[in-house]
């Protein structure tokens, strides 16, 4: 009795909590409402199954509690029932999976008019790079990163000349314009995640990963790193500002381009005699080779 009631209370409590919870997702600020919808769908189907199974269990507790001398039913198998349940479950699973796959298909196909934005993650912070007038990002390589070339851009790639450097953790985005986030990392795994945009993807050193979304609400959003990246993981925050064209352009003009950055740097260089050793591996290799030469 008591047992059944307590279990019943757990079920009812769960439902009540779900309905009245003050903790719920943040207002969505991107095009991915379909993700929210699939979650809701999962709640209906999954929650339904949970409630039915648990209620049935509670019913059994009440109805079939031990009585001395009673025999339980002896029926090892029931083919028909088992088959029916299999089909029912299969249908439920398909009903969940199909919309999920459709949304995923949209998630990995970037619209053609998306603006490319490079997010560069490091321990522990963010910086960004935008394509210039040509709309294309220049080729890059972590290996050639140096003080003169903080993004490791290929100097010979003309696409890179007008790239815009945003060396702060604050990124501005145009409202209602899809963005393709290209993720880079110079050290360990990170993940560029803004809860309001619903979307995320790891930044993996050595490769470039991507995802896309279309911000559709002006405002300031906090970026959270969502892949463990060392002690300051929890503090690796950034900021995204979604705004209209006018203020966006104003912000864009304040940023530096690769060419202006290089020009400025060249002047500085005369004063600073600093050589950055980028590649102690190649020196390592050389020493091995030298050993041979000597012999």
């Amino acid at each position, binding site marked *: 009795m008591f047992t059944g009631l307590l279990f019943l209370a757990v079920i009812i409590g769960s439902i009540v909590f779900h309905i009245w919870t003050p903790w719920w997702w943040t207002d969505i600020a991107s095009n991915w409402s379909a993700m929210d919808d699939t979650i809701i769908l999962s709640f209906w189907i*999954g929650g339904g199954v949970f409630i039915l199974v648990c209620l049935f269990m509670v019913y059994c507790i009440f109805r079939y509690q031990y009585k001395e001398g*009673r025999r*339980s039913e002896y029926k090892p198998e029931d083919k028909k029932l088992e088959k029916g349940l*299999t089909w029912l*479950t299969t249908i439920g699973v398909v009903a969940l999976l199909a919309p999920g*796959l459709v949304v995923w298909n949209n998630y990995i196909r970037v619209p053609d008019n998306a603006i490319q934005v490079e997010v560069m993650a490091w321990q522990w912070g963010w910086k960004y790079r935008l394509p210039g007038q040509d709309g294309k990002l220049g080729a890059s390589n972590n290996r050639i990163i140096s003080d003169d070339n903080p993004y490791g851009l290929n100097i010979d790639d003309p696409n890179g000349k007008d790239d815009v450097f945003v060396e702060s953790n604050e990124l501005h985005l145009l409202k209602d314009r899809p963005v393709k986030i290209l993720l880079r990392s110079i*050290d360990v795994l990170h993940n560029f*995640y803004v809860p309001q945009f619903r*979307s995320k993807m790891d930044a993996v050193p050595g490769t470039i990963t991507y995802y896309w979304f279309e911000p559709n609400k002006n405002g300031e959003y906090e970026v959270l790193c969502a892949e463990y990246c060392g002690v300051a993981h929890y503090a690796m925050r950034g900021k995204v500002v979604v705004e209209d064209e006018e203020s966006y352009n104003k912000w864009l003009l304040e940023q530096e381009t690769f060419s202006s950055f290089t020009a400025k740097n060249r002047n500085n260089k005369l004063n600073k005699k600093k050589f950055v050793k980028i590649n102690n591996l190649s020196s390592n290799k050389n020493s091995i080779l030298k050993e041979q030469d000597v012999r």
Partner: protein
Amino acid sequence: MSDELNINKKRKNQIKTKSSAASGRGETDIDYVRPAELPEQDLYHGHSFITKWIFCQDAKVIGVQYTLTAVFTGVVGLILSWMMRMQLGFPDLFPFLTAETYYQMVTMHGMIMVVYLLTALFLGGFGNYLIPLMVGARDMVFPYVNMISFWMFFVAVVVLMASFFVPGGPTGSGWTLYPPQAILEGTPGSGYGILLMLISLSLFVIGFTMGGLNYVITILQARTRGMSLMRMPLTIWGIFTATVLALLAFPALLVSSIMMTLDKVLETSFFMPTIIKAGEALSYDGGSPILFQHLFWFFGHPEVYIVALPAFGIVSDLISVHSRKNIFGYRMMVWAIVGIGALSFFVWAHHMYVSGMSPWFGFFFATTTLIIAVPTALKVYNWILTLWRGNIRINTVMLFCLGFIVTFVNGGITGIFLGNVAVDVPLSDTYFVIAHFHMVMGIAPLMVIFGAIYHWFPLVTGRLMDEKLGKWHFWVTFLGAYSIYFPMHYLGFIGVPRRYFEMYDSPYMTSAVGMNEFISVAAFIVGAAQFIFFYNLVKSLRLGKPAGKNPWKANSLEWLTPDVPPTHGNWGEKLPVVHRWAYDYGVPGAKEDYIPQTTAPSEVKDAEVEKT
């Protein structure tokens, strides 16, 4: 319909009896069982204290050794979780809890709970104790190797614990140990800590392989007369399948451990791409961090089922015994266990939807993952259908089984959320994941473990555990754990990422402060409730009611030994002979409401047995 089937089956059995009785015996004998194929097992009987209790070759003692060691690590894991909850609920209370220590605790807690507690307890503990007894063997087939297996595990635990005391402390890389971060400065314990972790894991794998070979061969090749595979209790099926999974999945862990050790010690670049630290490139170049993730999860996902399948098996038996009813759909249960086990090798990348692997994998792995949901759901239906029209004893064991059903279904359903690739995008790496896997592979298997301990304690010690304390233990643990993890899902919806030392003042996270405090308090209470359990264990060991033989009126062989608790060699003079499956409860026409596996058909002539 089922009667027809039944007749067919009987006919088949008769035919089989004839053909295998070619030697001329037993054509008319309904009690006929094939003669023994194997000679008696040669056993080493220890005489000194050391060979009897320490370097002991008796699987039952080894099982207890495994259990005690695993429980010890579990207590360490529990204490670590307390400290983490302390930090998350009341961040200002303990200034000495730094981010470094927090991450070290998260890592050690996760690894200890998954590998050193649950895996070792289910396979090493329950596996060793129950397999020989339940299949009717005198011992494991290679007792000496079995003994070494435990001591390997023991050394692995010592190495793991040693990492708390080395310079730099234990590794703080998260239990997934993802490189490059795991072996680079910037992660606590990236020196000795991670090395000891990798060594300990390798030792664990080696030790486990020794034990695992024993379990598999004992089940396959050392069953007693009459014990066919389809008569084995589901506990054995669960442990068997899990062991096979482990033997095939642990290699990936071993390989990734070796490769990462080399990356750390020799600065090879298996998993390490070009890395710029403090403006300078490290000597690494060209490796693939995602390769590690594939290897890790090729181990890691089956690992989830290595924990889950024995739990499935054990809980099936507990439910059946205590609701005095045959397990519903035995054959379906067996196929579901085997099917889930096989499928579990094709779903690993559902942990990597947002890892940057080729996004096309998402379709494949989401589909396979949701396919697994079908056999899993069927198992759940069969558990509750076993309760249905049963005669349910509401004792501590049954309570834990019911608690298992609730938490497992809850966690299983959130698993469908996360497996469904598009839903995983917003939820992955948030507290939703933490809540999900604690529910499904933390709390649910723990429920089974507790249930199993209350159930088999009388077998191991000859005494019953205290029911009253047991019920208190159950309710506090179940309600407490549920109220820790159920609300936690909603933290994930808000967007709180996992592995956050401090939530800070993000506008939408401040609303969760209250919830975090509540969860922490619940965690302290749940942790404290475990001491009721330990007290009960110790008390019952000396003062518990003597259990006598077969206190639960169960059918399976472990309760039918001549001595209780069973002695070395298990069966005294003669091995048992099995005549039926382990679930003949409430058979119409039989005198008692249970028919033990060793009861010959001629002894219960009137029983209308369906499956044998």
